[in-house]
């Protein structure tokens, strides 16, 4: 089979050069070990300030509650209102709890009292979460008549890398598959060997398959590697069917390879191909719902996300890892990727063919 020869040649071209071998292997490892733990919107080890002007006991007790909370690890005591501004400005802490001098007196006579929280809005996300924690501590302290009992399903302690690693299975395999395929044709073109390939007895479809298969193999292998590390090293729960995940990954990687070949067939030089990859990759990661949920985006932007294979794969990967989602949801997210794959591969093969004439 001459396709086999081509596939073998392509695989060798990717894996033989030590530099390109490194560029496939090293970035995912770094990202998995560093970024999976860094990409957290979690709030821990918060530094805060306390300005307690209350001469009574209640204020002191409230401060003690904050000291006992695991979230607030550094508490600085301020002495005057004028110390608040420099404290926040210089980011010595994200929040200041301000208890006024009437606090104990009011509470002791059963009158409503209030405490003020001053938060650093520069970090709006963190500030909001910290305000939530503080609110909770104060509510408990003030004896609410309504109590909220929280349970987080699928990830009871809200461990962030349980979210990151399943997402990285998709994102990193996407990166690799994309770079491998989008550069493969562009490089051959720059070196002039692509024309040789075109004049060989291989048909454009065979060339396409020959370029496609190695990308799928490398991308899927990487996804599998991260998946194994996630399950066995990071002990992330895996509730769904591994076979279904592998099958979905294969379809996902194929759709990405399609995009890569499409970019490649448009570009004449490697620099253009790199640029093209970049222009596809960044919106993919940002709009896929990985960084922030899709429903936060403006409604006119949300339809764009339907064009990104990553969007669907994230739902499947996270779902199979953590939620054990049923087959119909998987199917619902699979067919758009199949469509994208068909469309991009067909266009790429059309563009190859046009070059032949």
């Amino acid at each position, binding site marked *: 089979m001459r396709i086999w020869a081509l596939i073998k040649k392509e695989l060798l071209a990717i894996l033989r050069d030590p530099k390109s071998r490194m560029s496939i292997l090293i970035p995912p490892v770094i990202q998995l070990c560093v970024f999976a733990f860094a990409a*957290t919107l*979690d709030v821990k080890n918060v530094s805060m300030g306390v300005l307690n002007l209350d001469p009574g006991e209640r204020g002191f007790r409230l401060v003690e509650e904050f000291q006992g909370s695991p979230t607030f690890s550094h508490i600085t005591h301020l002495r005057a209102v004028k110390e608040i501004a420099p404290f926040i400005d210089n980011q010595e802490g994200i929040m200041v709890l301000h208890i006024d001098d009437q606090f104990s007196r009011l509470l002791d006579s059963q009158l409503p009292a209030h405490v003020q929280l*001053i938060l650093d809005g520069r970090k*709006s996300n963190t500030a909001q979460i910290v305000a*939530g924690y503080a609110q909770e501590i104060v509510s408990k302290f*003030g004896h609410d008549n309504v109590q909220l009992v929280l349970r987080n399903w699928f990830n009871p302690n809200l461990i962030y890398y349980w979210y990151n690693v399943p997402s990285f299975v998709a994102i990193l395999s996407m990166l690799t598959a994309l770079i491998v395929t989008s550069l493969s044709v562009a490089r051959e073109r720059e070196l002039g060997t692509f024309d040789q390939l075109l004049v060989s007895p291989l048909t454009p479809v065979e060339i396409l398959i020959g370029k496609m298969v190695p990308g799928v193999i490398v991308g899927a292998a990487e996804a599998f590697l991260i998946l194994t590390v996630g399950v066995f090293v990071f002990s992330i729960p895996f509730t769904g069917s591994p076979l279904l995940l592998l099958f979905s990954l294969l379809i996902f990687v194929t759709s990405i390879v399609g995009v890569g070949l499409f970019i490649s067939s448009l570009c004449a030089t490697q620099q*253009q191909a790199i640029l093209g990859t970049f222009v596809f990759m960044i919106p993919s990661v*940002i709009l896929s719902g990985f960084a922030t*949920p899709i429903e936060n985006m403006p409604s006119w932007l949300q339809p764009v996300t339907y064009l990104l294979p990553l969007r669907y794969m994230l739902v499947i990967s996270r779902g199979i890892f953590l939620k054990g989602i049923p087959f119909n949801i998987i199917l619902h997210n699979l067919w758009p990727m199949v469509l994208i794959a068909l469309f991009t591969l067909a266009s790429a093969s059309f563009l190859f063919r046009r070059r032949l004439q």
Partner: protein
Amino acid sequence: MIKALVIKEFYQIIRDPSTILISVILPLLLMFLFGFGISLDLNHLRLGIVMEDSSPDAQALVQSFKDSRYFDTKIVRHRQEVLSDVMEGNLRGFIVIPSYFTQFKKSGHIAPIQVIADGSEPNTANFLYNYVQGTVQRQNLIQVEPRFWFNEQLESRHFLIPGSLAIIMTLIGTLLTALVVAREWERGTMEALLATPVGVWDIVLGKLIPYFILGILSMIICVFIASVFYGVPLRGSLVVLLLVTVIFLICALGTGLLISTLAKNQVVASQMAIVSGFLPSYMLSGFLFEISSMPTYIQLITYLIPARYFVQCLQTLFLVGNVWPLILTNMIPMLIYAALIYTLIAKKTTKRLQ
């Protein structure tokens, strides 16, 4: 001598469309994506409400959720009706008002409300709980009054856009320089340049000055978009902003130059630029993810990333003003970084000459 090199470089920039693409179109695209694509403001949190109790008290509680602009609610009687929605991700979670809610409340007990959040997206789960907490009206003697300074409306865009400028500058400084210089190595024109009587520093400067100017131009465009289009306030002075940008660009350009001298190949250079420049400035700079929440060993790594200091300066300059102690403590590490990088470059490049 430098002048001739700079002019040559400018011709190259103008003639190669992909350079203009990277330095003008890519920043615009990124500004667009960061401005609209990333948003931490949850306005339509899809929440299920299971009303096992239908007393007036419970009705009033449900009404306050319906009226809240943060929630899109789905009200059911039994929790079985929302389970599949949570599974499919159609609901981010639900609350259960138990059948004994009113009874407990009337008899002076603490009335419980159960909140179930979909933990597979931890940040959304956190926010769901916070917003539910804020919506449930309670009788409590102590009122908490949160005040968010610098960003009273809590617009996440005001927090994200200044930080995103650091990413864009990294991209231009590092990726562009790395690619351009690597191309010269790849084509062998760098050796030709080194063989001329031009000194090493002249070559380095001749490369850096044009891209430095390009970077400053991009920055001006970005700051303009940030304040005019996205309405982010600029409370610090422009001069300080320019000064900080200049220092950061020197770091970013140096990193790009060093990468290209090490890689000498466009593909590898672009990979290195992404892994050592773009991704750290995205993930480890504190632009989106809080540094103090990261594990200690990663926090240590962030000190090595110039974008970390630049992001802090940007966020402060845009939203707070000229807070000199903070800005100076962030400038010094960038200057040290720059000094180290250029020493390394000088070493590497002179070696090539021999």
